[in-house]
């Protein structure tokens, strides 16, 4: 049971998010109204995606420096869970946008950032698919992963500062402004990010273990 504490923690945190996300106090705002609670579920997807992509980057660097096949597998599977989260984030964000900004898709720096992140990681998987030799595949994919991650950071970290955005906290800051979330909301939001990220890691480890079993069978 000892090695499972983090899975329990993730589950508990997400339950906490579901309960307090609906029942807790939220600031009353025009336009957003009650939908401000979507922050706990939509924005967390996006934060978790960044966490997972960063993990994938670390594994790719590890693979390039050590050539360990397991590191490449880890890089691939964390990226694929990251893609899952970003798709969920994109779909939920689109729905939310329909009811607050009035359209499913708006020309917004952050929205574009997520869409482009998806395109980049789709290219990552296409690249993986077009090479057969596992060593070469790991190397090329790792190199592309590092390049892609940096470009993604440029896109989501710098460009929103240069352009106007409908998302909160813009005009200089890609994160949340001080006034967008009160302390009550933070008490739910940050645990929610950790909770969803841990669930993502859990899913990733399951996939990694499955692949390891397949490797064993092949040998």
């Amino acid at each position, binding site marked *: 049971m000892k090695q499972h504490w983090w*899975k329990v923690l993730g*589950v508990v945190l*997400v*339950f906490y998010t*579901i*309960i307090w996300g*609906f*029942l807790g106090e939220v600031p*009353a*705002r*025009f*336009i*957003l*109204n*009650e939908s401000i609670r979507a922050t706990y579920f939509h924005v967390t997807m996006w934060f978790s995606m960044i966490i997972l992509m960063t993990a994938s980057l670390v594994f790719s660097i590890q693979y390039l420096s050590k050539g360990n096949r397991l590191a490449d597998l880890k890089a691939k599977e964390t990226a694929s869970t990251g893609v899952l989260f970003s798709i969920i984030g994109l779909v939920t964000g689109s729905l939310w946008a329909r009811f607050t900004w009035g359209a499913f898709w708006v020309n917004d720096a952050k929205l574009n950032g997520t869409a482009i992140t998806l395109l980049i990681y789709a290219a990552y998987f296409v690249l993986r698919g077009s090479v057969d030799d596992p060593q070469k595949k790991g190397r090329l994919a790792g190199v592309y992963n590092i390049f892609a991650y940096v470009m993604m950071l440029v896109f989501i970290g710098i460009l929103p500062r240069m352009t106007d955005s409908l998302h909160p906290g813009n005009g200089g800051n890609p994160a949340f402004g001080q006034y967008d979330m009160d302390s009550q909301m933070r008490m739910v939001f940050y645990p929610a990010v950790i909770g969803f990220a841990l*669930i993502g890691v*859990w*899913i990733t480890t*399951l996939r990694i*273990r*499955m692949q390891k*079993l397949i490797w*064993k069978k092949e040998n």
Partner: protein
Amino acid sequence: MQQLQKLSFTLFAFLPGIPLLAQMREKPEMADLMRSNGKIYVVVAIAALVFLGIVLYLINLDRRLRKLEKDDK
């Protein structure tokens, strides 16, 4: 009489501002009804159950994998 005229004049002068004032005092609409009749708890229960189902599924997968890993050794 003149004072009354003055008063009504000032009132009329502020009249266009009144809707704005009313809007400022008006609170953004929140789902307070859901809260007062307790229906919000139903929503929470449903969302929690959905997530519980996913967690049970994950635990099941985890256990199956562990069994396979043990058999392999």
